[in-house]
């Protein structure tokens, strides 16, 4: 079936380094993507989103890149800090009759070493 998935389940980086979290999606008709950060015991926290008519979008220390040719999404975190340690999920908006819901991948756990 069509789904959103992640290339790497875990990622460990040194404080101050840049982090890149990758995500693959399978539905070429998807038009909206979103990244969430989830800390233990909390709900997903919005980080950044991007529409399919864009290739790149920047926020504060974060950048999302969308490559529609290979159906790939990535989240770049600059100067990673210990507070960035969490599980990161990418999600795409549902399609067909379920355009309201988000379809999530399994998540990537980011660990930042001080």
């Amino acid at each position, binding site marked *: 079936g069509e789904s959103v998935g992640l290339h790497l389940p875990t990622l460990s980086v040194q404080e101050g380094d840049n982090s890149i979290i990758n995500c693959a999606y399978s539905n070429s008709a998807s038009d*909206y993507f*979103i990244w*969430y950060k989830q800390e233990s*015991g*909390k*709900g*997903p*926290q*919005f980080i950044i*989103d991007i529409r399919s008519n864009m290739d790149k979008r920047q926020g504060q220390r974060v950048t999302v890149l969308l490559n529609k040719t290979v159906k790939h999404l990535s989240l770049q975190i600059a100067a990673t800090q210990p507070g960035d340690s969490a599980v990161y*999920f990418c*999600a795409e*908006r*549902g399609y067909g*009759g*379920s*355009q*309201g*819901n*988000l*379809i*999530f*991948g*399994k*998540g990537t756990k980011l660990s930042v070493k001080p």
Partner: protein
Amino acid sequence: GAGVSQSPRYKVAKRGQDVALRCDPISGHVSLFWYQQALGQGPEFLTYFQNEAQLDKSGLPSDRFFAERPEGSVSTLKIQRTQQEDSAVYLCASSLGLDTQYFGPGTRLTVL
């Protein structure tokens, strides 16, 4: 401003009991979503409201699950005759339309 709030934060139920989980969305948000998150997994869609209308309930796992939003603001997810497999975190999210969804802290349900 205030975000999405959910109550209770934790709920322990004996198998067979009914439970009700509450969600207070961000004021003015038209859309409200319920998701179920199993341990170590991403959230999975349950149901979606636009104002008081339930437009999609395709993710509800069985007829024991029921959701309502009678006045277009607060929503309740009810699970009847709870089973052990219902143990999960139940997340509520709201949005102005169909784009950015803002999540609450979730209710962790444990069925014994």
